[in-house]
């Protein structure tokens, strides 16, 4: 925890999620039931506006502050698009576009272009598309790169889910009107990067959750006359899981903090790649320790592990980001390898 805002956000999210994100809440969400009460509380507390400047009614927080919330979403597997709305509000802020009242935003990730103010393109896996009123996107308008806001309607969405049964619809826009847009000077890969940053933090949170659950289970489950956590084989496995949990949290913080410093490309690639490896090892150990019970729908472990397996593939797999790092390292040569790590910079 770096400052007061972080502590406040942490406490608020803890209180809210421990009250509302019950097992029933997650199970219902998998049946397509929107957790209205939870979402209302989140909005009433202004958590979606953490990155919006104070003068525009937001919290004026940092990316490290936002990371606190992303991790909490992962820790509780909160089935709401809070992370996506935080990112969307930030992107709209970059363009000075005001968020419509009572809107639920989602991020459209794909190639879009505009012709005479009508927008076309598709976003194949759109988070929480079935509950979202508006989409935020980056698009080409001639040679300009613009940020835009569009209204979503059911005709444009082909509903789909990810493996964790979170809504991930395919959205096709065919000459749809833009509500608002503005030319921006930003990276054309911005949405993918912010998505990777958000999922990295959420995964760090979900990894904490599976560690906590696994340790609790190991201390409760009795076999051979004692808790299985008393066996060295289990202790050693859980220790390994915890080292990956620690590494993931640090990698996610590193990405958030680099975002705050305005130099995030290297750190985001590091985080998404490192945490992907942690998921492979960590989810495996958590399930092994839980035995057969953790493999049932009834037991809640899978709410975290199915999300981890889905999230690690979203916004570029770990390998995709690792490939980017490796290509830069090889093309810049061995002499620049160490300086690029100490400066956290891909292009020295």
């Amino acid at each position, binding site marked *: *925890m*770096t400052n007061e805002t972080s502590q406040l956000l942490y406490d608020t999210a803890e209180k809210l999620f421990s009250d509302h994100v019950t097992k029933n809440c997650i199970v219902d969400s998998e049946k397509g039931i929107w957790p209205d009460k939870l979402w209302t509380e989140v909005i009433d507390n202004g958590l979606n506006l953490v990155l919006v400047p104070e003068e525009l009614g937001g919290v004026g927080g940092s990316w490290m502050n936002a990371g606190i919330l992303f991790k909490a979403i992962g820790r509780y597997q909160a089935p709401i698009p809070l992370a996506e709305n935080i990112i969307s509000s930030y992107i709209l802020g970059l363009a000075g576009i005001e968020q419509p009242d009572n809107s639920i935003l989602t991020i459209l990730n794909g190639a879009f272009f505009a012709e005479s103010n009508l927008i076309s393109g598709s976003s194949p896996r759109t988070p929480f598309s079935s509950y979202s009123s508006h989409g935020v996107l980056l698009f080409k308008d001639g040679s300009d790169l613009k940020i835009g806001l569009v209204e979503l309607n059911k005709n444009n969405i082909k509903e789909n889910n990810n493996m964790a049964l979170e809504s991930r619809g395919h959205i096709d826009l065919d000459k749809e009107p833009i509500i608002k847009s503005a030319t921006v000077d930003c990276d054309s890969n911005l949405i993918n990067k912010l998505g990777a940053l958000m999922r990295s933090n959420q995964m760090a949170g979900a990894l*904490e959750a599976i*560690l*906590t659950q696994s*340790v*609790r289970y*190991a*201390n409760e489950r009795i076999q051979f006359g004692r808790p299985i*956590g*008393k066996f*060295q084989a*289990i*202790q*050693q496995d*859980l*220790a*390994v899981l*915890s*080292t*990956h*949990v*620690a*590494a993931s*949290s*640090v*990698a996610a*913080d*590193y990405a958030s*903090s680099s975002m705050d410093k305005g130099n995030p490309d*290297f*750190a985001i*690639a*590091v*985080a998404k*790649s*490192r945490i992907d*490896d942690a998921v492979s090892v960590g989810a495996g150990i958590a399930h092994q320790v839980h035995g057969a019970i953790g493999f049932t729908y009834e037991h809640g472990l899978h709410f975290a592990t199915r999300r981890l397996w889905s999230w690690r593939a979203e916004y570029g797999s*770990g*390998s995709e*980001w*690792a*490939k*980017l*790092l*490796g*290509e830069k*390292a*090889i*093309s*810049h*040569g*061995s002499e620049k*390898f*160490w300086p690029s*790590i*100490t400066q*956290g910079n891909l292009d020295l």
Partner: protein
Amino acid sequence: MSIPFNFRLTDFPSEAETLRLEVREFLSTALVDVPKETRAETWYGADEGFSRKVGERGWIGLSWPTEFGGSGRSAMERYVVLEEMLTAGAPVGAHWIADRQSGPLIIRYGTSEQQEKILPGILKGETYFCIGMSEPDSGSDLAALRTKAEKKGEKYIVNGTKLWTSGAQRCQYMIALFRTSKEEDRHGGLTQFIVDLTLPGVTIRPIIDLAGRHHFNEVIFEDVEVPETMLIGKEGDGWNQVTAELALERSGPERYLSSYALLQELIKEFSERNDYEGVTEIGRQMAHLTTLRQMSVSVAGMLNDGDNPALEASVVKDLGAVFEQDLPNLAHRLMDLEPDSQGNDFQRYLAILTQISPSFSLRGGTREILRGIIARGLGLR
């Protein structure tokens, strides 16, 4: 249960980044004649001439208080010097232990007589220390050690054997953990001493490792008379003193940079051939290395703030050893080249690191011991 670790990110202050450039400048000329094999060994490679040069620059005891002759700079600045030395393959082995833990131990627990006698030589890069902990029947179970120091007048009479003592052949002193009271008192009966290795009755025998190198030694004590003035700290407090020392020993950059030379050589090979075959693997290693560095720097920050990050240090050392040990296997998978001490640079690095990598998860606390410590932190023991 809440997560028992707290790795908060730590930034290097600007003076540390200035120092980094000075160290790079110094190393660009100081390492010209250092052979590849020595470079590959990083902190196990020793060159006394090099250590004296580092001492002249004031980079030994960098973070020690000025009243003890140190430079009074932050742990973060010290960290920068260490990581730059290690990644450049500087032969820091001679002064490494004295700088890292023996000097700080003497500053914390030593008498002013001990401090005046020993610290100046460490700072000059001329006085070297080894660690006398392990024994033939006491490895991971350190508290089982049996070497006895019996009080007789103003002296302690020492009998027994220390084993796996790295670098003893070039050290003037050992910080040794001896048993000063009866064996039933496993932890309470242990005391630390500063032992002058030139005392009569001390025999240092080489133990050659599997790569043919002489790093390990067996140090035998036969009726060695250690003056009571060389007891460090309090009699019977040895166990607690050693535990504190281990936090310094377990989290530094040497715990994940041991195979760094090989990674750099691998990138060099790929760059020169313009070959992107192993590109994803290189990127993954970069992600792991960067994350480990952030974790290790975080522990340095906690030490700097006076916290006790013993658990976090164990996490860094365990993950770091896995990373270091994977690299020779990865290099083998990616390159169709035999490890060969007569071959090209890559093959020579691969030969040395393949052979020494088993030691990475043994020295300074085995993998199993570290994971046991972590499991205790998780509330499983």
